[in-house]
């Protein structure tokens, strides 16, 4: 009996300790109970006890980097105090909110530990007004209930009329939805409650915050109508954990309770010159701040009294003055949803006649956020979440303030003329729906915001599905690709309705890229499949193509010769025709100043003075096995540059090794005419003279044949000596067994003629990537640095780049995933910045781009890309200082935002040394860490921790399990 009582007491004690929030205490109590002589049966456990205020004393609020704060979870259990039917509320009722306050482990908080506890009431949900302005005594005035929950009762009863909005002035009024001083309307109202616990991490202060809201009925309303125009997840797709105001407010519904109709910013005349017409009404502010750099007001565009556009207005930054009179400038914000953000919406009537500066303003406006579904639609596609219940309100309730938030060139007091129609001035919202219906017309909201590429009547879609990657031609038939074997691909081309499309729909060619192995992509092929080569019924099976340039076939002799090319067959179809060139003259000559090895894409010569861009040259003229012809892309003093796989306009690099002292001679090449000068047998690769080419003249051929898996890796994209094997580039090294990838895509050329303007679009297919095995590899190991390309689409919706010619992560990764790839070099665009050592490899470039404004060198990190001007100005320098990574808190420290929740590749860079031919270690850590940590101090640290022989010691401290491991240091608070 004694032992049974003791057991019961102990059991009660255990329950209490658990409820106090200390698992340690529970374990101790259990241990004591057992040590006390636990014999016999355990008896009944008894009902769970109520949660008590946090046991074990105050919660430790002094944390170190890597520690996890306890979490603050506040949940409203009930609202009481309503004197109306069914407990609904009336004017004068005092609301009591009963809530629980727990940690992430389920134990209860002592509310006295909360540094902040606030509550407020706003409503009705269809047009939020302030009702009970925020009170801040929740943490001190709430009463603990017997069950461990807390109750807080507002001191004031529900008033008869609405309170003024925040920072109210006469600027906004009834027409803006503001109901200050008017009697409360019947409807659904919302109570918001949030509490915060303060803590430090290594001395820096943070808040652990819990937010909650609950709806209740007021004034005879009988049905709860929750406001749900966006879901929290719509915000968190980009923001991860939406928060504002020092981290105190997280829930979007809570935001609505203060950002009510007519609410304004601080509008202090001494700050930013005053902001007298800035509202923080949620539906206005959120639209505007996501449209920042595309707002007509920011760009200096407004409307003349006659309704026409005025492109000479004074640009006005979009600034909100907030807490402490801090100025929040959103003038550079660009919404990342694509294609809208990159590929402009159609031109308005008269665009072509605008001056260049006005066109630039229009272009910025036309790339503003118009992907309404990103915020108002289904946030997770095929996932479990449904679209927000009231998401379609953005289509059914057009209004001056919500529409005018983005279209802020509209002056509601003036007419507004666009595309041959004029909207009269609008005194209120009553007439909006008369013209702007939900869908079905040019002025309908859904239609006007739909991107042409998403309009199936304009862009039926193009989908390329790679079904198989196989050995082709002579092979060992083992299913794996080996050096020397040809590669065939089998694929289909369909539209979005699933119907087969003709190859010609995709224009002249499809793009194809082949890279591998997946753990350290190196480029093997960057080419194109001429669509005339695709024939017959689908699926198409074709070998991958390879462009052979300026192949030396031999010297012509007296009499009609027959020459045979090294590779067969010749494709010789439109877009890939064979051309034969004959050397007819020689001129300036020099010698190599240094040995040059294949596939090097430059030679250093004794004197480059006599050479110019686009000269054809021969090296080792007359030396058997070494004589080769190239075309100079750039003469940089005594360095003569050829090219890289980034373009087919020039032969990329040397095909043979040449010693120092080898001759280099400028030659004249004349193109011969097929059928007249020579006859081609494409299958055999024979070229037969029909007219004598001239005895002693060298004969060359440029042609497309089947791609053959090489024995070694070719040049990288835009290759220069700046980046070599220390950056994982394996150019010239033996092919490594493993998983390789091929990706194919194409585009429809589309023209939208609208309002007298021609709008060119590309209906680009997503790249379809297929993995295959090379050599002795046995298991397909897909690219794994991120969990899925879909992670990009969480923010970007649909990844487009390069003028819309590349779509989807799989189009990016096979070029930008490759080691050693560089931005546009000066040998392509001579007047471009040198950007020496800059790489376009994703592991560096993508980190840097998304760091953007957070980079120590934000405005000066530069990548050189395509430019539409002529040589030598054919480049565009790109900088990313305006990019703000939207993940909260702490932006780019949210590694999982891009890498994926379950992905651990970012915890430690994987080895990328070539298994047999690595000369110097790969700078695996520098490539990724130095991309974000780019300050001179951080770079000095990396330099110091890398030996002179290139060995990195980063893992000593930063690998998993070590003191400053990557996940720990990137944990955000």
């Amino acid at each position, binding site marked *: 009996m004694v032992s049974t009582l003791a057991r019961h007491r102990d059991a009660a004690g255990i329950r209490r300790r658990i409820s106090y929030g200390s698992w340690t205490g529970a374990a101790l109590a259990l241990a004591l109970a057992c040590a006390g002589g636990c014999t016999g049966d355990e008896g009944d456990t008894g009902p769970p006890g109520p949660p008590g205020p946090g046991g074990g004393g105050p919660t430790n609020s002094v944390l170190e980097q890597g520690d996890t704060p306890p979490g603050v979870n506040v949940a409203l259990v009930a609202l009481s105090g309503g004197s109306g039917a069914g407990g609904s509320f009336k004017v004068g009722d005092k609301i009591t909110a009963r809530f629980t306050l727990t940690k992430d482990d389920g134990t209860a908080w002592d509310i006295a530990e909360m540094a902040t506890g606030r509550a407020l009431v706003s409503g009705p949900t269809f047009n939020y007004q302030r009702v009970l302005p925020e009170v801040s005594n929740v943490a001190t005035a709430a009463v603990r209930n017997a069950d461990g929950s807390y109750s807080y009762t507002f001191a004031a009863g529900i008033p008869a009329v609405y309170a003024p909005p925040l920072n109210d002035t006469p600027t906004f009024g009834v027409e803006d939805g503001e109901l200050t001083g008017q009697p409360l309307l019947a409807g659904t109202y919302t109570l918001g409650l949030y509490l915060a616990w303060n803590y430090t991490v290594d001395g820096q202060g943070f808040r652990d915050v819990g937010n909650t809201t609950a709806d209740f009925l007021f004034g005879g309303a009988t049905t709860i109508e929750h406001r749900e125009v966006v879901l929290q997840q719509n915000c968190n797709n980009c923001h991860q954990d939406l928060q504002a105001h020092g981290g105190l407010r997280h829930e979007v519904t809570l935001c609505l309770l203060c950002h009510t109709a007519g609410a304004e910013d601080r509008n202090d005349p001494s700050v930013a010159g005053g902001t007298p017409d800035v509202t923080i009404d949620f539906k206005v502010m959120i639209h505007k701040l996501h449209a920042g750099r595309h707002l007509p007001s920011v760009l200096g565009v407004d409307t003349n009294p006659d309704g026409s556009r005025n492109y000479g207005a004074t640009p006005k930054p979009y600034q909100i003055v907030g807490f402490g009179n801090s100025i929040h400038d959103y003038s550079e914000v660009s919404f990342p949803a694509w294609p809208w953000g990159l590929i402009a919406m159609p031109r308005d009537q008269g665009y072509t006649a605008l001056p260049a500066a006005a066109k630039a303003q229009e272009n910025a406006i036309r790339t503003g956020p118009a992907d309404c579904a990103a915020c108002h639609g289904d946030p997770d596609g095929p996932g479990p979440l449904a679209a927000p219940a009231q998401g379609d309100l953005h289509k059914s309730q057009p209004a001056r303030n919500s529409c005018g938030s983005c279209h802020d060139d509209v002056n509601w007091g003036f007419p507004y003329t666009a595309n041959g129609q004029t909207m009269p001035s609008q005194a209120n919202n009553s007439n909006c729906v008369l013209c702007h219906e939900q869908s079905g017309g040019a002025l309908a909201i859904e239609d006007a915001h739909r991107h042409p590429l998403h309009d199936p009547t304009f862009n039926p879609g193009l989908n390329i599905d790679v079904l198989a990657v196989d050995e082709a031609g002579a092979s060992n038939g083992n299913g794996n690709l080996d050096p020397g074997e040809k590669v065939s691909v089998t694929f289909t081309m369909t539209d979005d309705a699933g119907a087969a499309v003709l190859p010609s729909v995709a224009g002249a060619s499809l793009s194809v890229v082949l890279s591998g192995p997946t753990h350290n992509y190196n480029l093997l092929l960057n080419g194109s499949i001429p669509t005339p080569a695709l024939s017959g019924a689908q699926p198409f099976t074709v070998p991958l193509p390879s462009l052979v340039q300026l192949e030396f076939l031999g010297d012509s002799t007296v009499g009609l010769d027959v020459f045979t090319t090294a590779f067969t067959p010749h494709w010789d179809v439109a877009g890939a025709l064979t051309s034969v060139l004959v050397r007819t003259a020689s001129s300036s000559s020099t010698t190599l100043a240094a040995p040059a090895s294949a596939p090097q894409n430059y030679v250093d010569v004794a004197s480059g003075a006599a050479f110019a861009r686009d000269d054809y040259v021969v090296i080792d003229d007359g030396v058997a096995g070494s004589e080769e012809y190239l075309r100079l892309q750039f003469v940089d003093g005594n360095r003569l540059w050829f090219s890289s796989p980034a373009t087919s306009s020039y032969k990329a690099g040397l095909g043979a090794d040449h010693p120092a002292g080898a001759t280099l001679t400028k030659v004249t090449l004349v193109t011969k005419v097929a059928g007249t000068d020579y006859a081609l047998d494409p299958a055999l690769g024979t070229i037969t003279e029909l007219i004598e080419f001239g005895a002693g003249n060298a004969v060359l051929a440029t042609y497309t044949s089947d791609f053959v898996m090489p024995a070694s890796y070719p040049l990288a994209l835009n290759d220069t000596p700046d980046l070599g094997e220390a950056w994982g580039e394996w150019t010239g090294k033996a092919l490594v067994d493993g998983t390789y990838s091929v990706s194919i895509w194409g585009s429809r050329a589309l023209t939208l003629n609208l309002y007298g303007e021609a709008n060119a679009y590309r209906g680009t297919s997503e790249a379809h990537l297929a993995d295959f095995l090379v050599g002795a590899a046995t298991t397909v190991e897909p690219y794994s640095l991120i969990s899925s390309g879909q992670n990009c689409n969480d923010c970007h919706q649909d990844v487009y780049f390069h003028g819309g010619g590349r779509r989807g992560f799989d189009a990016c990764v096979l070029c930008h995933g490759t080691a050693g790839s560089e931005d546009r070099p000066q040998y392509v665009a*001579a007047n471009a910045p040198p950007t020496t050592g800059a790489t376009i490899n994703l592991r560096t470039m993508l980190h840097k781009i998304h760091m953007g404004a957070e980079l*120590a060198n934000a405005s*000066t990190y*530069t990548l050189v890309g395509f430019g539409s001007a002529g040589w030598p100005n054919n480049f565009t320098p790109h900088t990313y200082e305006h990019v703000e990574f939207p993940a909260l808190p702490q932006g780019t420290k949210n590694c999982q935002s891009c890498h994926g929740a379950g992905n651990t590749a970012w915890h430690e860079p994987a080895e990328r040394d070539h298994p047999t031919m690595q000369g110097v*270690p790969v700078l695996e850590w520098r490539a990724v860490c130095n991309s974000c940590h*780019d300050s001179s101090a951080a770079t000095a640290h990396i330099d110091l921790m890398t*030996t002179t022989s290139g060995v990195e*010691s980063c893992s000593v401290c930063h690998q998993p399990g070590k003191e400053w491991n990557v996940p720990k240091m990137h944990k955000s608070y």
Partner: protein
Amino acid sequence: MTSAQANERLARVELRVLALLLALGLASFLGMAWLLEGRAPGEAAAPRAAVDAMPRAPADATPSAEDLGRPVATPQGARTAQDSPAAPEPPQILASRDGDPLRDPIARAGEREHYGRFARMAAGDPSVLEDQASRVLFGAGPDSEKVALLRALADCGSTETGAWLETAVRRLPDEPSAAAESVPAFALQRLAGRAAADPLARASLERIAFGPGRPAPERLRRQAATALAEHASPGELARMAADLAGEESALLRSSVLEALSRNPDPDAVAAAFGSLPQREDSLHPTQEP
């Protein structure tokens, strides 16, 4: 022992050697500084190049004619190496430059933090920032600080912005890295961005490309000339034609001739240069392939 372990061991050995060498080097350097210049260890040294003390008064912001003349427009009172052969006084070095950069919060800060500091400094009175311009631009701080200063000058509406941009182009070292373009290149980009609407900016570009005095590196002259060609007025085009005739850099000439095709006044271009060169559209398509 795996290769990783071997590498790690090698790294440790090399690091110890490096640390020892660095310690010895640092001690020697500080000792020499103490002996030669009488400065305390850790106290920042003056920049190698003698630098003018930059004044604060704004350059003339209202040109009397569309085409400005050639005088060098450094901030008023500023002297160039040419007009001031005597060694000018070095600028005062910011106190924050003292000390270990790893421990120095300003040295650790990036462009955003520097910009925020300058923006606060300039709030309501750009002259406060203008007072700092010389010391920051010619100080030993990181490039990100100099870039932030130039940005802040522009954003706070300083009338000296153009002059300081030109000064940065002409007088700071052009030392780009993989992580960042040089400060002069940044300043030149900003000047180029103002060229369409600002004759003062075009005058700066003209001086950088073709002016007398300390020449900018050729790549900066080239880019300045290119930007100028795109936006030059008739008077500027006429001078540019004369300048190009004596220009030694073939690439600069090519860059300018190509850029002239984008000048909004083709008649003026033709008057100054004759017929325009043809674009190489076959190799350089206007739509990204």
